[in-house]
């Protein structure tokens, strides 16, 4: 490892792209004794595992939780988090033979992984505390015994939402005796998922109160700006923060790497796919165990494929480096095999989506390569943390893409290494989410205006009464509908349906994975090249009626990329206001997405080698959004007055591109939570419009926030494009460059400059600033 680092340091071609090389020194562990009241069985169980003392944060968490206080622990990956909550829980459950605990993990895979880890602590049954996983995969025959005898139930929010709470009378023993609720990876619950989570926990608390229990909450969070605040807003109660990490850590190097410019004029940099591949290859060949995080499933497959191809060429004989790809869409069994291979060391490298970011145990790796900024600093640190073992040196390299956020990070390392990265945010009062959960809550137990958990809900209840699903009688609102509301409410996505991918090569009929329907339309259309574990498969038929997709092995030299066309219809305009003499509107939109064409791109060079047609029904979404109107006579219109429609379109799309990239920073969401569409002549308003909308059916309040805060967002967009080092616009600022070349502007002004003027025209105080 040291040698590898030395080599990097001496390599000028590498070093000239490094914008920051930060060394974080090794840290010794800080230990405390076992608590005095620790049950002897528990103590001997720990000692038989070679554990004779606790990390300081484990001991503090123990004391806090045992004192009955809600507790939030912030620790990086691999710092004995599981023990910090399981020890006090087990201790209490050993004292109270009826006591129960609920562990919630954001995904099924994590839950299963944790059950294995917990089984280890309870010595596979030596301690009389039965731990069971209760999720969608639990067979019906085991469910009754899980409910009745499981002392620690491991589950996920979705199961709690649709399976457990609506059937609470079957869980009476569990809820009557519930002592602890553990929420792991609490930082995941922000934005849409988080707002759902708050309401889900409200429902859980109602049920607990009904059965007379008052559980204590424990939350474990990754390092974000406001872990305590976020956890408190999730559980809606006070909590004690434990953030003294007592686990030892080895020396860590964090390197920010900005790939070299290929075309200085246009700001084009070498792609993250190839750059990440090269770094990973170099490390793997030096014997460094490496994980590469890619931002999309497609890129995961590409990088893994490129790495393996390169290795194959070089090591035809015995030298054997095994690299796998890992992402959602693989079958659980496939994933388990890869995880095990990584733990045991038979797999030397892995290319993954953020699926491996959360605490799944894959053992210690030496190097993590982040192929692109993962969208939030917390995520970046989680991914970086996957490399590192006690007592050894680890390295993380962030390879920046041309995207504005990435460029911002490498341009401003202080932001990345600073104390206070971004903060998690939830909006439990979002009326859509609140109403959905009130329905579920009403189904579970009748509601009153003065509900102890849901506050100030009279109007919402009357709304639901008007909708006909609740009935008011004698001071209470009762569920009065035949449906099962939880079934219609998804905590995460708009589409609960999945397409099953079937490999039919040479008469086979193997299910190799699955994918949600909207993604399938963009990735699994007829004729698409689908990459799965490095294999190139061609889609024979996407059967959306039966949610199946048939693929066969194909030997194509290209991959495919679909082109999505968006159509916006304004359903209602709720608000309209002025900003520096320009108008913006907010209201309900119908967004239609149509995938009608795809590009064929050659492997390796990524050059465009042709197009194909896609014949699929369009996807419709009713959501909320804002429109920036370029009304006649407005300052914004003045900027576009002297150009033709094509050029105006380029300016609008440049501005749109920038807005979509910077808005997530202010709205605390990710780019894909937002949609953008530019219209040179909007059919509804008759003028050019830029739409920014929530990419979630019904809307989740993001564009509503943007409507209020538009000036800050537009200013940031302007700052970004002004700071960009390119000459006439590049992918890092206003967007795809080849389209810029077509533009014709008076007085040799570039699209980039015109875009800056356009953005400035929306800001009252900065209009004069533009040069």
């Amino acid at each position, binding site marked *: 490892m040291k040698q590898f680092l030395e080599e990097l340091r001496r390599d000028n071609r590498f070093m000239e792209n490094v914008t920051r090389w930060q060394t974080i020194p090794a840290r010794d562990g800080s230990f405390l004794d076992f608590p005095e009241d620790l049950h002897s069985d528990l103590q001997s169980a720990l000692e038989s595992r070679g554990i004779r003392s606790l990390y300081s944060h484990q001991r503090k968490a123990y004391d806090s939780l045992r004192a009955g206080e809600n507790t939030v622990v912030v620790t990086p990956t691999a710092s004995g988090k599981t023990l910090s909550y399981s020890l006090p829980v087990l201790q209490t459950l050993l004292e109270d033979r009826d006591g129960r605990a609920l562990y919630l993990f954001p995904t099924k895979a994590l839950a299963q992984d944790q059950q294995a880890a917990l089984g280890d602590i309870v010595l596979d049954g030596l301690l009389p505390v039965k731990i069971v996983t209760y999720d969608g995969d639990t067979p019906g025959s085991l469910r009754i015994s899980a409910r009745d005898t499981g002392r620690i139930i491991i589950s996920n929010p979705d199961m709690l939402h649709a399976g457990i709470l609506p059937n609470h009378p079957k869980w009476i023993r569990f809820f009557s005796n519930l002592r602890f609720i553990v929420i792991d990876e609490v930082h995941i619950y922000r934005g849409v998922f988080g707002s759902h989570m708050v309401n889900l926990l409200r429902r859980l608390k109602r049920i607990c109160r*009904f059965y007379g229990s008052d559980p204590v909450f424990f939350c474990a969070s990754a390092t974000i700006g406001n872990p305590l605040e976020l956890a408190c807003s999730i559980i809606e109660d006070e909590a004690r923060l434990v953030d003294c990490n007592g686990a030892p850590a080895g020396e860590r190097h964090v390197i920010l790497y900005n790939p070299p410019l290929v075309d200085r004029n246009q700001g084009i940099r070498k792609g993250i796919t190839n750059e990440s591949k090269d770094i990973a290859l170099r490390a793997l060949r030096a014997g460094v165990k490496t994980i590469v995080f890619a931002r999309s499933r497609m890129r995961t497959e590409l990088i893994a494929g490129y790495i393996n191809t390169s290795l194959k060429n070089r090591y035809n004989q015995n030298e054997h480096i095994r690299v796998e790809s890992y992402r959602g869409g693989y079958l659980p069994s496939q994933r388990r095999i890869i995880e095990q291979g990584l733990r045991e060391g038979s797999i030397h490298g892995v290319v993954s989506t953020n699926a491996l970011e959360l605490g799944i145990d894959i053992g210690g790796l030496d190097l993590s390569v982040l192929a692109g900024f993962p969208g939030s600093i917390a995520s970046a640190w989680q991914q970086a943390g996957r490399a590192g073992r006690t007592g050894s040196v680890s390295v993380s390299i962030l390879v920046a893409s041309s995207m504005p956020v990435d460029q911002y990070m490498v341009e401003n390392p202080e932001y990345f290494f600073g104390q206070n990265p971004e903060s998690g945010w939830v909006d439990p009062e979002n009326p859509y989410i609140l109403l959905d959960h009130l329905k579920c809550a009403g189904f579970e137990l009748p509601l009153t205006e003065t509900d102890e958990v849901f506050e100030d809900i009279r109007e919402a209840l*009357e709304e639901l009464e008007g909708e006909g699903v609740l009935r008011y009688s*004698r001071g209470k609102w009762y569920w009065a509908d035949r449906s099962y509301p939880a079934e219609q409410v998804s905590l995460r996505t708009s589409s609960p349906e999945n397409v099953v991918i079937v490999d039919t090569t040479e008469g086979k009929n193997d299910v190799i994975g699955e994918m949600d329907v909207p993604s399938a339309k963009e990735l699994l259309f007829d004729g698409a090249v689908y990459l799965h574990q490095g294999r190139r498969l061609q889609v024979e038929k996407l059967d959306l009626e039966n949610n199946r997709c048939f693929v066969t092995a194909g030997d194509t030299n290209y991959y495919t990329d679909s082109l999505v066309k968006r159509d916006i219809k304004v359903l209602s305009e709720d608000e309209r206001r002025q900003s520096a003499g320009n108008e913006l509107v907010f209201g309900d939109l119908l967004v239609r997405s149509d995938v009608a064409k795809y590009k064929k791109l050659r492997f390796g060079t990524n050059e465009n080698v042709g197009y194909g047609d896609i014949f699929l029904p369009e996807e419709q979404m009713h959501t909320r959004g804002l429109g920036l109107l370029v009304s006649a006579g407005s300052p914004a219109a003045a900027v576009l007055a002297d150009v033709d429609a094509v050029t105006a379109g380029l300016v609008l799309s440049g501005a749109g591109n920038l807005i979509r990239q910077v808005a997530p920073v202010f709205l605390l969401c990710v780019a894909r939570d937002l949609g953008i569409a530019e219209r040179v002549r909007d059919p509804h308003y008759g003028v050019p419009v830029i739409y920014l909308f929530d990419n979630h059916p019904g809307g989740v309040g993001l564009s509503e926030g943007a409507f209020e805060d538009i000036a800050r967002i537009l200013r940031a967009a302007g700052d970004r494009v002004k700071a960009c080092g390119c000459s006439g616009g590049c992918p890092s600022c206003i967007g795809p460059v080849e389209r810029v070349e077509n533009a014709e502007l008076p007085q040799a002004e570039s699209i980039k400059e015109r875009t800056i003027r356009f953005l400035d025209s929306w800001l009252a105080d900065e209009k004069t600033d533009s040069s």
Partner: protein
Amino acid sequence: MKRRTALKQRLEHIRRHPPSRKHFPNEDAGLTPPEKPGKGARDSEDLSVISSQWQRLTEYTYRRIEKLPYPGDFGQWNEGSFPFPEGTGPEDCIFYDTETTGLSGGAGTLVFLVGAAWIEKDHLRLEQYFLSDFPGEGEFMEAVAGLFSQKKVAVSYNGKSYDSHLLRGRALMQGMVFPLIQELDLLYLSRRVWGKTLDSCSLKNIEEKVLDMVRGDDLPGSLVPERYFRFLEERDSELLEPVFRHNRDDVLSLVSLTSVLAELPGRVPSGADPLQQEGIKGRVVLKGDKVPYGMDPKAIAGLAALLGRFKDPRSAAVLETAFHAGSVEAGRALGRMHRIDRRYESAEAVWRRLEKMGDYLHARLELAKYYEHRLKDIGRALELVEACLYGCEIDPKKRPSWIYRRNRLQRKLKSKIGNPESGS
């Protein structure tokens, strides 16, 4: 930083533009929703809207009592225990059915009507309990629980996995414990007897095909929830009349079906004769009986298996009949029964006959075991095993056990030949 419009305003917006989401189609799709939500429901009401047959027990709980003639031919009920659980008889039963506000189960499904019947001296007493609005559930459930606590067996159709859970859950939510009595689910019994001959074992189909009755203008069960919700709004009990009738008819069908099931064993002709002659294909009208019982071999075999389970002494005779009528399953069960009761010769005869009927693997395996372990006739056992190994199609998963058996027999045979004295 977020603008927060008053909730009311945002809600109004949603009302005007509901998110596009799948809604359950319902009966009243064409009806406009009530203009004023919950009108008329907020006051303590006088439910003279419920017709005069109903007696008001508490504010929201109503009861209707009906006395009906003694059902079925109870004379034969006492011959065996079937279909009653051990130690119980018809007088211990409460026949019941519930009507609910949803079919999915879960805590939001309300039971608003319970019909229950039981035998009282020389007649059948039917009581229906009706909950006219949500707040009365506690009293309603107490009244219903009171009924159940007086009996030992609850007879239902699909109550084992639906109604009983629901009642128990509702009671729990009211802080009560519902009396735990045995559940006799006629759906389970019907499936065993008629499951292989009828295309569906829905109560409706059983009524038509087995009880020979057709309901006139019955309200489909799936429309029940909408009716109740409409009643809650409109307070017009006429809306519920079809629901009350539907529930009453369901309960009465349970009584009839129980009596048919109880009579069934006695109606199965003994041994091989009569069925054979009449040509038992499909349903057979038994002599002197107006009711078509669906007595084909499969049904008889199913019945026989049930009788065995209920430890009914008539099970052997019924199995015999079913076996002679051509049921392989009955033959297997009969052979097993003979073997357990150590009637080895009878068992051997059954297996021989099964072999002739083409049930090679099962019959020869049983025979081979019998020859090897009982008669110590290793040679014959080996012959049978080899006949299967070479002559029959064996499930690859089971093949190793056959090979293992053959090898063992071969070993035994060798040691016997090599050392004839030691054989005993």
